[in-house]
């Protein structure tokens, strides 16, 4: 069993002092009463004993009995009995110690354990001093102290010291004591470790300064010097440079005290805060980085306490709202919120906090210079290990542009939808395969279908059979030339089987999944009907006009028929006369019969022309040789020309493209112009009455017909009205000729106009 040296020393001296005082007491036994001794021993928890050379206890003090828990009435135990009470682990040592004292006359000082009869163990210290008379050992006297309490304290102290050392080591905190007057410094084990000195080294101020970072040395020195002078508590932090070059941060705290001798003394702690410093640096660095990040990203950051009050706002947000941090913190942010958005935001915020759930909410906040902008606020909770919310973080993102774009998009979408849904135009969206992708309500309604019935159908399926091919072609062309609009007319079949005429305008547009064809479709059934009625009316009018013209020409037409008929009759009679005479002239008869056949044909041709012109024919366009048309008209009007004593001449271009037209109507136009020309020359006596009809190529597929007279010309004042219906300068005229001619020409996609000749007369011309 080892003991702390200092304490050992102390205890030993105390024991000796006690022992000597016991001895003195015994020596003065006669003068001191037994009572005092006993009482003193009891108070000191100290018994005394005497062992004679024979190996028997001469004496046990009452206290000794009490220590051992033995009855004094039974007298001092014998040696064997005593050793039986010693703890088995200490019994051998005790046996040897007593034997040695008895035989050698030596003293002893031994601590051992005994066990009381009731089983309680006690620590007991024996200190014996040999008694000798004339060098002969006569026995040993000694004391026995119950040191159980002390032993427990010592053990506790040892344990605490171990704890302290361990704590210092673990917390990197060493302790020191410093007496400025003597220069003595005491370091704990950990302090040595911190300064990296062997613990055999004597700590001095110089040794400390030797380790201090050169940059901090002056400050440390100054602090130490001031402390040694003013004796005040100090606390400072500095860096150490270790022999291997590494740097340590230490934090030193010292309290001043005055020792028993009245001199100044510092007791303090040295904390190795390198790790903390590094962590702090790292945190500071991270914080700086974070702050830079926060100020850089286009998002503002706000954090709030669990109660919802704002405790942090990034600079960016402050710059935006143009407020100081103090104005915004807590609930000050509310005054920058748009009044209309405040309630939703507060309600949402409260609900999120109540549920402990993150929140996304859009709201407008006022910019420093006035206008509000839209922001998206994303708020998320931060929870500790127990799941308790310790903070809320909000990211505030400017979505004004997005909002505006959305609004514009919505507006345009609404406009488009409005047009699509409410416009009285049928809209179809068709994919490249010809399948209806969408149709507007009006379109479905016009066709008598539900929208759902049309979607997915073939778009050609709702067209009348004969129109499908051309529409298919048109759609294919649209798809070939994206973005180029095409227009066509076609007939659509309604669900109930009725047919409507439509004009469709279509355009193919590229889409992610392939091009789509947008078709705007207008119901032109009424228009078609009106056009048809107008066309019919015009055709009727043209017919009436034609018949009227023929009526006006009746005399000359009759003449045209009379001529060949006269020829026939006269020839026939001449032939008869040649046959019935005394010598029939057969040559004359043959020639006569030929002439009869020819004149008969001629008469029937005239009648055929008249009949053709008088016919109420449906407009039927066919490719025409305009020269043929003119030839027929000139033949028909030969009589008129003769009656007007005018010459009709033609200058027809040899090769003309065929033009698409209605033969009868074209003849009517030429006839009208021809008769007009003849009329215009009615009063001419001083020059030949000549009418020239000329044709020439106008374009690749167009022809120009000019009818030139040598008449009196057109009165410039009357020229503007010349093509009006019912306008006439002729006494018997109806005033329909030019008007009808013009409408016929225009129906044929041409133009009819008049120009004065360089010489006398006028030239009417038209293209077709």
């Amino acid at each position, binding site marked *: 069993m080892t003991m702390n040296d200092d304490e050992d020393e102390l205890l030993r001296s105390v024991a000796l002092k006690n022992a000597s005082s016991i001895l003195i007491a015994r020596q003065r036994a006669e003068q001191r009463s037994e009572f005092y001794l006993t009482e003193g021993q009891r108070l000191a928890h100290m018994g005394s004993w005497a062992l004679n050379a024979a190996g028997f206890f001469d004496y046990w003090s009452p206290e000794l009995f009490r220590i051992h828990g033995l009855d004094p009435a039974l007298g001092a135990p014998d040696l064997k009995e005593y050793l039986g009470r010693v703890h088995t682990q200490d019994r051998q040592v005790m046996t040897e110690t007593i034997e040695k004292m008895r035989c050698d006359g030596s003293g002893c000082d031994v601590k051992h354990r005994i066990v009381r009869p009731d089983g309680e163990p006690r620590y007991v210290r024996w200190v014996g001093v040999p008694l000798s008379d004339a060098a002969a050992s006569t026995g040993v006297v000694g004391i026995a102290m119950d040191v159980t309490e002390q032993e427990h304290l010592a053990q506790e102290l040892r344990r605490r010291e171990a704890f302290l050392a361990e704590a210092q080591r673990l917390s990197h905190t060493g302790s020191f004591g410093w007496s400025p007057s003597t220069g003595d410094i005491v370091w704990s084990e950990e302090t040595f470790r911190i300064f990296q000195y062997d613990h055999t080294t004597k700590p001095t101020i110089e040794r400390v300064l030797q380790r201090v970072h050169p940059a901090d040395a002056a400050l440390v020195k100054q602090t130490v010097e001031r402390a040694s002078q003013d004796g005040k508590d100090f606390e400072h932090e500095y860096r150490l440079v270790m022999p291997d070059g590494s740097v340590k941060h230490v934090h030193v705290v010292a309290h001043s005290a005055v020792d028993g001798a009245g001199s100044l003394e510092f007791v303090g702690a040295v904390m190795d805060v390198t790790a903390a410093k590094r962590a702090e640096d790292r945190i500071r660095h991270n914080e700086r980085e974070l702050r830079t990040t926060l100020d850089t990203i286009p998002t503002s950051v706000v954090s709030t306490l669990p109660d919802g009050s704002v405790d942090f706002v990034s600079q960016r947000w402050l710059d935006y709202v143009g407020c100081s941090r103090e104005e915004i913190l807590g609930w000050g942010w509310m005054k920058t919120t748009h009044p209309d958005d405040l309630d939703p935001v507060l309600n949402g915020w409260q609900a999120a906090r109540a549920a402990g759930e993150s929140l996304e909410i859009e709201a407008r906040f006022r910019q420093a210079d006035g206008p509000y902008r839209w922001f998206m606020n994303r708020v998320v909770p931060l929870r500790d290990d127990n799941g308790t919310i310790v903070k809320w973080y909000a990211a505030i993102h400017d979505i004004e542009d997005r909002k505006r774009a959305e609004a514009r998009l919505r507006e345009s979408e609404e406009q488009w939808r409005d047009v699509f849904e409410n416009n009285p135009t049928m809209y179809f969206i068709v994919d490249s395969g010809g399948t209806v992708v969408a149709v507007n309500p009006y379109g479905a309604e016009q066709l008598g279908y539900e929208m759902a019935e049309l979607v997915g159908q073939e778009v050609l399926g709702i067209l009348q059979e004969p129109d499908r091919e051309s529409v298919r072609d048109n759609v294919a062309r649209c798809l070939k030339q994206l973005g180029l609009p095409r227009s066509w007319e076609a007939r659509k079949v309604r669900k109930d089987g009725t047919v409507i005429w439509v004009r469709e305008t279509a355009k193919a547009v590229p889409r992610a999944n392939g091009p789509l064809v947008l078709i705007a479709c207008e119901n032109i059934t009424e228009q078609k009907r009106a056009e048809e009625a107008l066309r019919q009316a015009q055709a009727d009018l043209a017919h009436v006009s034609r018949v009227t013209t023929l009526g006006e020409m009746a*005399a000359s037409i*009759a*003449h045209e028929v*009379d*001529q*060949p*008929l*006269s*020829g*026939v*009759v*006269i*020839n026939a*009679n*001449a*032939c008869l*006369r*040649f046959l019935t*005479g005394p010598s029939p*002239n057969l040559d*004359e008869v043959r*020639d*006569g019969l030929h*002439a009869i056949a*020819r*004149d008969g044909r*001629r008469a029937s041709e005239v009648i055929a022309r008249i009949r053709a012109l008088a016919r109420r024919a449906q407009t039927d366009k066919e490719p025409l040789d305009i020269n043929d048309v003119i030839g027929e008209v000139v033949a028909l009007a030969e009589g008129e020309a*003769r*009656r007007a*004593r005018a*010459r009709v001449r033609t200058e027809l271009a040899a090769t003309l493209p065929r033009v698409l037209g209605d033969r009868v109507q074209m003849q009517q136009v030429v006839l009208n112009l021809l008769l007009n020309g003849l009329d215009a020359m009615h009063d001419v006596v001083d020059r030949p009455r000549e009418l020239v009809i000329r044709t020439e190529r106008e374009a690749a597929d167009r022809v120009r017909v000019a009818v030139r007279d040598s008449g009196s010309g057109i009165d410039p004042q009357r020229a503007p009205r010349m093509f009006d219906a019912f306008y006439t300068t002729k006494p018997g005229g109806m005033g329909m000729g030019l008007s009808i001619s013009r409408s016929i020409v225009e129906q044929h996609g041409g133009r009819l106009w008049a120009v004065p000749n360089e010489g006398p007369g006028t030239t009417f011309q038209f293209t077709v």
Partner: protein
Amino acid sequence: VTHPSDTRPIVFIVDDDPSVREALGRLVRSADLRAEAFASAEEFLGLARTDAPSCLLLDVRLPDLSGLDVQRRMVDANNDMPIVFITGHGDIPTTVRAMKAGAVEFLTKPLVDGDVLESIRQAIARDRAVREHQAETAHLRTRRASLTAREGEIMAWVVSGLLNKQIAGELGISEETVKVHRGHVMRKMGAGSLADLVRMSERLGMHRKHA
């Protein structure tokens, strides 16, 4: 084709319509007459006159000249060939004017062959008569031209109904001289009687003298 030896009457046809022109030609030939057809008036007017009895079948309406114009031009040229006008229905003003100007006949279309030939016959007969009359007049003129100035003077007094003695008194010559001249006149003029001579003087357009 006209042969110089052929003395048959000639029918001139002017019509711009080939059917009618040709048919009329054939009809004329079937009546054993000669036909000369023209498509325009100018062609016809430019033609030399013929000695044979003839007539003109003229269409009133021609491209170049009207029938009345042609008639006027012929009168101007002392061409008294009879004209048969061919006209359409109801051209009454033209008809009246033409008839006044001496047209023989008006035929309206459609033409009836009988009418045509009858008109032609009449026209030719008339032409023949005119020609005979003209030939007779020409003969008288020749005889009249053979008279001396005194004989001519005496003839004028004779046809005026004056007696020889009265004539002698007027001229201041003897009655016997008048008788001699009168005998020459009667013989030179080929007159059988005073009435003959008077008729001759009328044909010659001589004015009667009044004492």
